């Protein structure tokens, strides 16, 4: 396609293709989009052993016969970190903690190789007990002798004083240069010491494998002459450049559901409250969109049952999908958590949830006679007629899904609040729409939407919503600032950043916000999100007067600013 500039010089229409790849548990999906239209999609079985290999196969198929120069961006959502953690196959990692005063040390024994160091910091950042270099040496000797090369360091209240942690990191690097050291204050320096420790620990554990993946992808793209920016999808539904992902690879955990939710955002593109139902074979994942943005879990991603500081979607799963086998039980139906194969109407061996919907709705989908036959067999034990049995399965499915959704709404409404205003003006969830994706969504979502009296949407691109979500998700970045004017300094929650407050006496909330936004802008341009700084918003801004005696001695500020998950500006929605 050729376009002419006003000067009349013909130029190639460049960099308009968006490419997204989502590695799932069973299959890897890829899409190529151009101007809101799907150019091509690819599906391949996922392979745990050759993760990068599968990604490249999908990439090659999508780009076959096309000019790599036409690619605007390439986004990958991968299960590498998720799998590494799920299978507990990461390398042995040491967790070095400075818990200081408070809970007993044992409550922070988050890992088999946890080392506790002396030292204590208080909530204002004052060191109340010094660390001991001798203890660090002893710990290093022990760690080295155990053959552990991956180290994570976290100190309680490093959110108020990063120097202690950084001193330990320096000592570790000096004494044990072959080791890889990650610290809590560099990864996510936010309040909650155990979550910070867990985040640093899993980041240290996955760092090496991720580096290898990055090298492999980088090399493969170089060989193919692909110069387009490559981004990685994070658990929060945002992206980060491939190179940036090396800083904190654990942020890529659970990116699959984030890809699907962003796909739903891309397909609806409305600032409304919606439920995204990803109805698969035997499970349904439910995510919420609040005014068009995916809702994050308030306690962060959970890994091995531990909370972390990794922002991830507030996701709820139900062991119920299109292929779930249904059985007759005394006077009713039982929807099992098992899968025996595809639905009977598609040649499967047993009656499933999908079969019940097909029969109940008289749909011409696959072999309905076979679905009826299998349902009749399953209904035998229930004392119900086959059609009544199908209706009962449909009812139970809708009931369980709607109950779980209601629970999620209540949870959102009852999120912790610490201000009078928030309690008096408790928010209430108003549902605007159901968005279905996944294999069985087409069957379930219309009836569910009817039951909940809201519009339902199952877009024709729903089957590739996950890869689409990856392709069009924009970068995200959240920055927290903590400032103490009595001490004349502020801290940023990333990369150990700290700075002075020039005029403590006149430093006000507006300046605190501005400082946070300035840092967001600086970090964003380093992290490939510079384009969206203008769309950043202030999520939280607190200020407290510090009164000693009867006069003010200073102020404490906490500010959070964010480039929230969203869709890249270049994508204007799906053309119908």
């Amino acid at each position, binding site marked *: 396609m050729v376009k002419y500039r006003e000067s009349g010089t013909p130029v190639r229409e460049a960099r308009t293709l968006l490419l997204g790849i989502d590695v799932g548990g069973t299959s890897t999906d890829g899409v190529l989009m151009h101007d809101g239209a799907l150019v091509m999609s690819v599906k391949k079985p996922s392979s745990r052993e050759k993760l990068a290999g599968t990604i490249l196969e999908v990439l090659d198929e999508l780009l076959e016969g096309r000019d790599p120069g036409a690619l605007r961006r390439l986004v990958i959502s991968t299960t590498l970190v998720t799998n590494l953690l799920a299978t507990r196959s990461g390398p042995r990692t040491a967790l070095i903690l400075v818990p200081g005063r408070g809970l007993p040390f044992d409550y922070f024994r988050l890992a088999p190789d946890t080392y506790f160091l002396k030292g204590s910091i208080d*909530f204002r950042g004052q060191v109340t007990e010094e660390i001991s270099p001798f203890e660090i040496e002893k710990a290093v000797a022990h760690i080295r002798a155990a053959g552990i090369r991956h180290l994570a360091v976290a100190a309680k209240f490093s959110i108020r004083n990063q120097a202690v942690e950084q001193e330990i990191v320096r000592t570790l690097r000096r004494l044990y240069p072959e080791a890889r050291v990650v610290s809590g204050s560099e990864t996510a320096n936010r*309040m909650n010491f155990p979550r910070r420790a867990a985040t640093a620990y899993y980041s240290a554990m996955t760092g090496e494998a991720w580096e290898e993946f990055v090298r492999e992808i980088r090399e493969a793209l170089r060989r193919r002459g692909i110069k387009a920016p490559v981004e990685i999808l994070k658990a929060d539904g945002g992206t980060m450049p491939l190179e940036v992902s090396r800083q904190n690879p654990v942020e890529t955990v659970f990116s699959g559901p984030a890809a699907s939710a962003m796909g739903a955002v891309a397909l609806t593109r409305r600032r409304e409250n919606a439920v995204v139902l990803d109805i698969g074979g035997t499970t349904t994942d439910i995510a919420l969109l609040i005014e068009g943005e995916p809702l994050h879990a308030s306690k962060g991603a959970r890994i091995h049952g531990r909370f972390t500081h990794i922002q991830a979607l507030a996701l709820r799963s139900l062991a119920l999908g299109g292929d779930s086998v249904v059985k007759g039980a005394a006077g009713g139906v039982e929807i099992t958590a098992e899968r025996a194969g595809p639905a009977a109407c598609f040649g499967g061996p047993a009656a499933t949830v999908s079969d019940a919907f097909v029969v109940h709705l008289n749909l011409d989908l696959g072999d309905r006679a076979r679905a009826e036959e299998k349902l009749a067999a399953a209904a035998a034990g229930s004392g119900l007629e086959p059609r009544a049995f199908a209706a009962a399965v449909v009812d139970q499915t809708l009931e369980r899904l709607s109950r779980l959704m209601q629970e999620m709404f209540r949870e959102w409404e009852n999120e912790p609040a610490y201000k009078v205003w928030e*309690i*008096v003006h408790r928010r209430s969830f108003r549902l605007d729409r159901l968005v279905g994706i996944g294999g069985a969504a087409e069957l379930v979502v219309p009836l569910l939407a009817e039951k909940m009296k809201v519009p339902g949407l199952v877009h024709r691109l729903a089957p590739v919503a996950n890869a689409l979500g990856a392709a069009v998700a924009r970068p995200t970045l959240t920055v927290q600032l903590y400032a103490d004017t009595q001490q004349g300094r502020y801290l940023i929650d990333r990369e150990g950043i700290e700075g002075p407050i020039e005029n403590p006496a006149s430093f006000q909330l507006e300046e605190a916000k501005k400082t946070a936004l300035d840092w967001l802008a600086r970090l964003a341009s380093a992290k490939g999100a510079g384009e969206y700084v203008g769309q950043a918003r202030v999520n939280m801004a607190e200020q407290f007067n510090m*009164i000693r005696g009867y006069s*003010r001695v200073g102020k404490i500020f906490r500010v959070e600013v964010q480039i929230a998950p969203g869709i890249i500006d270049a994508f204007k929605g799906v053309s119908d």
Partner: protein
Amino acid sequence: MKPTGILFFPAFDWAISPTHPEREERLLYTRDQIFEEGVMDLPQIREYQPRLATPRDIARVHFCVPSIEAVTTEAHLVSAGGALVIGDAVASGEVKNGFAIIRPPGHHAMSVVHGNRGFCNINNEAIMIEYLRRRYGYRRIAIVDTDVHHGDGTQEIYYHDPDVLFISFHQDGRTLYPGSGFVEELGAPPAVGTTINIPLAPYTTDQGILLVLEELILPLLEEFKPELVVNSAGQDNHYTDPLASMRFTATGYAQLNRKLAPHIAVLEGGYSVETALPYVNLALILAMAGIEHDNLREPDYDPAAFKEDPGNLARLKRMAALQRENFRRREEEREAVRKSGQDFYTATRRIYYDTDNIHEFQQVRQRLCPRCCSYRVIASAAAHAYGRQTRVLCFSIPLACCSACRDEAREAYIRSREEGGAGFDYLYLQDRPADEYRRFHCQREQEVTIV
């Protein structure tokens, strides 16, 4: 094992005035400490969110003059509602015990409320207790007030109720606000012996307070057998508190609460926001959740710093013995009252509202009934700064009131109303058995039912 319920409501947007001890900053460092520890993520802990207490919840305890809206802010309703939520969590068995870390506090608020005294407008514990009695049928309740100031509001509310054992230890009233809480304050005649005060000498240490616990509080609880123990948990006995002069430590608070094992703790005072509250609040949480506290201490803590004066210990032992005796003789004393044939017990008192500068004069009459814990009639006149005066007459019918006394009280209220208020500005009827609360505006001859 059931978890411990925690409701943390720091009211980060509420203060009495910008530099007042009861200001936004008060629970800031407590927030830092408990959230940095990850306390709310522990399996032993379940976090709760407050709701708004309703006017009826408040009217069950208080006569608010001229109205609930006039003497409370939304912050008070949320704080009291926080105590209600924790009360529900414990009463329904969702948690084994619960701690409402709420502000504003409440233990200086009495039955009649003309304004704020001792930083309190409405009594969070009493509102919770009357709600729990109503909803879950509790009868016998013990309140242990561990705030450094005498819990005079709670004492007054339960002074006439033999089913509520109120025990308060505090810095001697001769040296600290509110200037009451002496050994002689034992309860109104029908409830004598179920109000127990232990005034402590300034500078009393962990050892002294734990002695009071062991030798007085625990034996009394053992004998009284309450269905519910509530800790009215002030944290200003701490050695760094700016308003008081005691020498209690976080370790001492943890030991106290471990042994006391209250079902519910409700935060009261405590104004050493940076050097005490983070540690003491965490100490209470650990004690209630059954987590060891040996790694929790103030940065400047020195176990050898505070030595208890042997003379003080001997005095506390004597006081404990005296109060045990007063408690044991309570039935005898009450029997004597019943036999005296008197119809009413009458008392008068003056109450000062330090925050709002109000002088109140009260006359209280309690019906002496051989069959029940009978009703009270409170006549109260309040002189506000700048000369405004308000006079109210309040009829309070407790849950355990017999039907004859209850009818009598209601008739007396109706009679006063028909007389056009008998010289009062407002009349109040608090009928707890019916859960019915009314206020009559005498000048307008207008009655409202509070719901």
